[in-house]
């Protein structure tokens, strides 16, 4: 009994540690006082001001757009890559897997400056031909797609390995062409992996700062880079309000999805 209590307490402490800053930010978002140290009474004014702050809203728009696009493209690219890699010979397979994993295993700062060097050099090269190219939304998108790829492949690959190959053969046997067999049988079966790859990519993209920092150039601020640039002046409490809204929204969605696993499997079916 004591042992069980001890375990519960330990788990509670770690969760407290992980969620304390989140709770803090939520509390601060309702703080009437501007300084983060003093509690100036309950207020919703930062929520109101958030919707009047065009800079933050523009960064939010960029962040979400980049997250959705990069996750979608990475999912498409990563899923087809997984299928291709899955059917390669062992040696080529392990080479490809190592390449896929580079953006995940390598330090973000190295990936970031590598991109920066690539894009600036590409810009210099293209200017010789009179083409104007500089870092911005597009380069951020490319960066995010690239570092999302390994997460998609890692999510889809195990599903492909689990896939009962005779299910695909059964579909062919029952008259389906290769394409039909893929879309009707293989894809629905690996769908949980594809979806979790998408979600993971979306999350990673949303939370990224380092790579965006190096490849955003002058424009295309995301929430992360906006926060970083505000560090010296002090973070605007509107930011706290926004992150509280985002966090709660995601929390509710995830709780809803987890409470309805049946619905989920029904969604895969069609």
């Amino acid at each position, binding site marked *: 009994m004591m042992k069980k209590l001890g375990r519960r307490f330990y788990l509670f402490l770690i969760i407290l540690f992980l969620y304390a800053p989140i709770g803090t930010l939520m509390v601060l978002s309702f703080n009437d006082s501007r300084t983060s140290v003093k509690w100036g009474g309950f207020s919703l004014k930062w929520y109101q001001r958030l919707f009047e702050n065009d800079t933050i809203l523009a960064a939010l728009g960029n962040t979400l757009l980049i997250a959705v696009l990069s996750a979608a493209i990475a999912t498409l690219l990563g899923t087809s890559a997984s299928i291709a890699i899955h059917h390669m010979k062992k040696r080529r397979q392990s080479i490809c897997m190592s390449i896929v994993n580079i953006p995940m295993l390598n330090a973000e700062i190295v990936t970031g400056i590598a991109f920066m060097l690539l894009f600036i050099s590409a810009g210099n090269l293209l200017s010789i031909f009179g083409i104007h190219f500089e870092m911005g939304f597009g380069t951020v998108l490319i960066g995010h797609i690239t570092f999302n790829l390994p997460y998609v492949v890692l999510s889809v690959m195990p599903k492909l390995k689990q896939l*009962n190959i*005779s*299910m695909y*053969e*059964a*579909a*062919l*046997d*029952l*008259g*389906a*062409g*290769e394409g*039909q*067999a893929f879309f*009707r*049988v293989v894809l*629905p*079966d690996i*769908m949980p992996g594809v979806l979790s790859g998408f979600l993971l990519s979306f999350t990673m993209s949303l939370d990224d700062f380092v790579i965006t920092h190096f490849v955003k150039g002058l424009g295309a601020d995301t929430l992360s880079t906006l926060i970083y640039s505000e560090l010296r002046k002090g973070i605007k409490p509107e930011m706290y309000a926004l992150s509280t809204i985002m966090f709660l929204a995601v929390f509710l969605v995830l709780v809803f999805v987890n409470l309805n696993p049946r619905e989920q*499997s029904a969604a*895969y*079916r069609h």
Partner: protein
Amino acid sequence: MGNKLIELQHISKIYDGHKVLDDLNLYFNENKFLTLLGPSGCGKTTTLRILGGFEMPDEGHVIFSGEDITSLPPNKRQLNTVFQKYALFTHMNIAENIAFGLKISGKSKTYIEDKIKYALKLVNLDGYEKRMPDSLSGGQQQRIAIARAIVNEPKVLLLDEPLGALDLKLRQEMQYELIRMKNELGITFIYVTHDQEEALTMSDTIVVMNQGYIQQIGTPEDIYNEPTNAFVADFIGDSNIFPGIMLEDKVVEIFGVIFPCVDTGFGHNRPVDVVIRPEDVELGAPGAGTVDGVVSHLIFKGVHYEMEVTACGQEWLVQSTRMYPVGEHVSISVDPFNIQIMNKPESEDEEAVVLDV
């Protein structure tokens, strides 16, 4: 000779430098239950996969109703397969699983519904339309896999060790079910198994394979009673296989003891293999039989006792309903009809001639 439905001509298949099938020739007639039987690695599953279109032979042709279908993909073939581990589509319910092939070929809704009803009735699972595959037992999943295949009205149903994952009791039940279904459908079943008992129970014809070669083709009775070589005799049922010498027609010498038999045409003093089924060895009082021996082991097997008798310095496997305790002196005798004489194979993978199936 009947109607040749499918014919395999000179099929060879090599995996990683290993010859899995070597110049295989075989044909199947309509409305037969045919079993490919052999140990794992004998090439039986590869043969089935070549028939189904999942593998291309390196050499040879597959002829279906007089047409060469060697390079036809599986979805274009009028055969359907029941896979070893069922391969049901786990994201579809039972009705959707069964309807899969029919929907692909664009059948009407009412036709599909009728077919699902009919198929579920055939496999004794009426009312299971809305269930999901993982909620069914292994035996039920197997029936659905069969239903899913047969609604497409294939001329041939290929079954790849379909009962392998079931427990013994269920397996025996399903054996009768399969025979019933085959008779009801009136199509050819080509069945792959390593279980000789399954093969003997269900088949019209058994093809015994080993190391990529056909060892023997025949009815279950032929295969059991008159194995053509030591491999078949050993693989099918229990048997005593002894080296012997055919002294002349109808006389064979085993370990220096003369046994009368009924085989002829082996010439004089020719070394042969002699097969005697354990249930054909008769024990009696010492001196009453052809040779005397001592019981060395005894096991009770339910319907009979299984004993080992040491005679002429060899162990003889004996099955009898009468018990002789260990240490008892007995005599051994064998009815001449029950002594099976075989030529010694020139090599392990000697190929049997293609017989009329």
